[in-house]
């Protein structure tokens, strides 16, 4: 395989295995931690059913038995019931609620970054705004999220989980994700730097002299780099989403993962990490497709050329 196809091929392969490797690693991690949920609910010194409970939850024969049982259930969409976080509720139901919420949160945050990137690439966003964005970016996402959470609670009171408040919560979370921790400022300065550097290339200067557009010439060459930048930004948003969801009490994957970890609800932890891995895999797939598409576009023969 030629080198130019290797990278997207690796990304495609990673996208396929990630949803299973991540839960496998998480299984190893949680097995290394002291205590287990069966002993927490039914401490052996106070309760005689610890072993029966461990057997019910596949905790009695080591991490591989637990993980393989989990995988065989997950392949049919059965993630079991929550043990401690929401006792008795199917984990699949919790995932169904959480995945779209996290996807919406990250997408809204990403939208902000895309708008910033577009503004920087087209020079619509003036460079003198960069210090302002950088100053805003100094604020950590957790601080922004905490301020928003306090305002929502005091403002809405008992209605803080109504549909309207939840929409506002999502919006504020996306703002926190997009603005804080230099997410937007980093995107703007990164894209601006890349595009300005490409603009100075000779072939672009020649294209401008021929009366062609700058972006239509520079973009195909910068697209792989831009795709890589945006994927990195998206992963940054995805990891930040976990913090923002917990602080702002958004019913997403990050909040589910956090709650499941605190409660030692292994089924929920694995399912939530599986959800994150699926989202990451989707991003990897998207990036691979962009790279493949760009390669095909760059290497096609232009029409209307007479040999």
């Amino acid at each position, binding site marked *: 395989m030629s080198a130019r196809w290797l990278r997207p091929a690796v990304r495609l392969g990673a996208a396929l295995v990630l949803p299973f490797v991540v839960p496998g690693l998480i299984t190893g991690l949680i097995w290394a931690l002291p205590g287990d949920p069966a002993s927490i609910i039914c401490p052996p010194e*106070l309760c005689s*059913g610890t072993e*029966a409970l461990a057997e019910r939850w596949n905790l009695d024969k080591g991490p591989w038995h637990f993980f393989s049982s989990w995988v065989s259930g997950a392949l049919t969409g059965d993630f079991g019931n929550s043990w401690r976080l*929401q006792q008795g509720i199917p984990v699949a139901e919790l995932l169904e609620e959480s995945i779209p919420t996290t996807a919406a949160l990250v997408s809204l945050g990403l939208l902000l970054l895309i708008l910033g990137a577009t503004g920087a690439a087209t020079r619509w966003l003036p460079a003198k705004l960069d210090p302002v964005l950088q100053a805003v970016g100094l604020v950590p996402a957790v601080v922004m999220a905490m301020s928003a959470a306090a305002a929502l*609670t005091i403002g809405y009171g*008992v209605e803080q989980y109504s549909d309207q408040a939840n929409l506002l919560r999502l919006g504020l979370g996306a703002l926190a994700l997009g603005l804080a921790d230099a997410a937007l400022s980093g995107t703007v300065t990164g894209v601006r730097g890349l595009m300005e550097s490409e603009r100075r290339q000779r072939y672009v200067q020649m294209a401008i002299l021929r009366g062609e557009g700058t972006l239509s010439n520079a973009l195909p060459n910068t697209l792989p780099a831009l795709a890589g930048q945006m994927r990195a930004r998206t992963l940054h948003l995805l990891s930040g989403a976990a913090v923002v969801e917990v602080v702002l009490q958004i019913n997403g994957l990050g909040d589910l993962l956090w709650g499941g970890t605190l409660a030692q609800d292994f089924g929920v932890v694995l399912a939530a990490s599986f959800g994150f891995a699926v989202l990451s895999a989707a991003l990897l797939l998207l990036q691979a497709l962009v790279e493949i598409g760009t390669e095909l576009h760059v290497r096609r023969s232009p029409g209307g050329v007479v040999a």
Partner: protein
Amino acid sequence: MQIALAGALATVVSTGATLAFYEESLPTSMNPLYAQSMVDNRVHELVLDRLYYHSPITNELTSNVTNQWELAEGGKAVRLTLKKGIRWHDGKGFGAKDVCFTVQAMLDEGTTSPIAQKQRAVFAGCEVEKDLVALVRFTKIFHNPRERLGFQVLPEHIFEGNTAIPPDHPFNTRPVGSGPMKGSMGRRGVAFEQVDNAHHEADIDKMILQEAQDPLVQVRTLQNNGVQGIIAVPPPYRPEVAASDELALKSYDLRSWWFVAVNPNKAYLADKRVRQALNQLINRNELRQLSIGVKPDEQNPPCEFISGPFVQSSPYYNRAVEVSPNSDKDAAFALLAQAGLKQVGGRWQYKGQPISLRIGIKAPLEIEAPDLLSQIGNQLSAGGFDRQEFKISVDEWNTKVLTGQSDDFDLLVGKWSFGLVEDVNPLFHSRSGDKGNLNIFNYNEKAVDSLLSQFNTARTDTQAQDAYHALHELLASELPYLFLWKLDTKSAWRTEVRSNTITPYYYWTVFDAWKFEP
């Protein structure tokens, strides 16, 4: 479009405002067999019925679901006749089969619950004699058999007769009860809806339980009428709430007492004179003032000192045993010297080795009594002991401390709460079999075991009281615990909430009488 309109219309014509309140946390389970916290116990009181409870007004043992009772089988069983017409929230009839199902579920080894395990020492079985008559059998004759029937009744039909109830049953989040409110737990709170019944007719239509936020945010939200109540107001915010005309601060007796458990397995703590000396070094007045904010001369303080393992209002409390509100360093030093400890450079040593006390506290207690751990450490340090302080998570407390596996600690600060049955046997009996299963440091004293057995075999209330009075006196001398105080929690409710009598421990027992007039 039509569905949206119908939804909006439904909102307009729905009856009753919603009463919202903050709880310390979300419940871990809505199944009383898997209760792990006081939040769980309070929520269960709204959704399910206990066979018997103490009236918060008269303290009499009473029942919402039984008409009459009688002793049977020589006192080893109780025959209960249930009231007619009681229904579960899904409309099915409530009867003797449900009572017996609940007993059988507790006896089933497949119900992997410490609460069920404890009840297996109490109940021997149950028989359905008629639709509304159940015969509950005990393992032995109790002097207070109805007090053993303070458990919530579960619906047999939901579990389809399967008495092995696991902790991940859907009932644990979406229960079907017979109480005044139907409850359903989500990720952010619990929603309650009033259900009319033959034995309940609550005045409040809907309630929402939400997890408490930052204390300042809680109080501001209450003041803004964003919520109408806070179950447990942190002590620093009580003066602000008390000063408001729109809010009322109400005492909530948790029937709980605080203690410092002492590890008698450590060589320097094995001698009771050392434990007595530590008791003399503790200044309870100062601790109370600095950590809870109660002044020594305050009238009707929410925090009442105790000298033994009962609250002062308990019939088992021995009033002849006095409390020690202040410290006495001279007496403490004399006791330590008698026990063979030596002071070198102002620090106590045992057999030439300096003593450094490892002191732990159950982490949530620091919210109720901020800095208590540090204050205790400071007092012991002033008395010549080095110390290290630790906060212990709830899970670690339940799995290590309560099971007697925390021998690396010297002192542990904790709190016990007692609902209906004030049985301290599991706390102080030496560990063997199913006895002493909450004995933190595996304390072992034959005289104590003997008194506990006397209580167990008591046939009358007087015999039981005599046994526990003697126990109180003995423990005040032996000091496996340094007994601190009983601390009432304070709830805050807006004045629109009326007739809100708060039952000790269970809180919502007489919820039918509560009114909300926004």
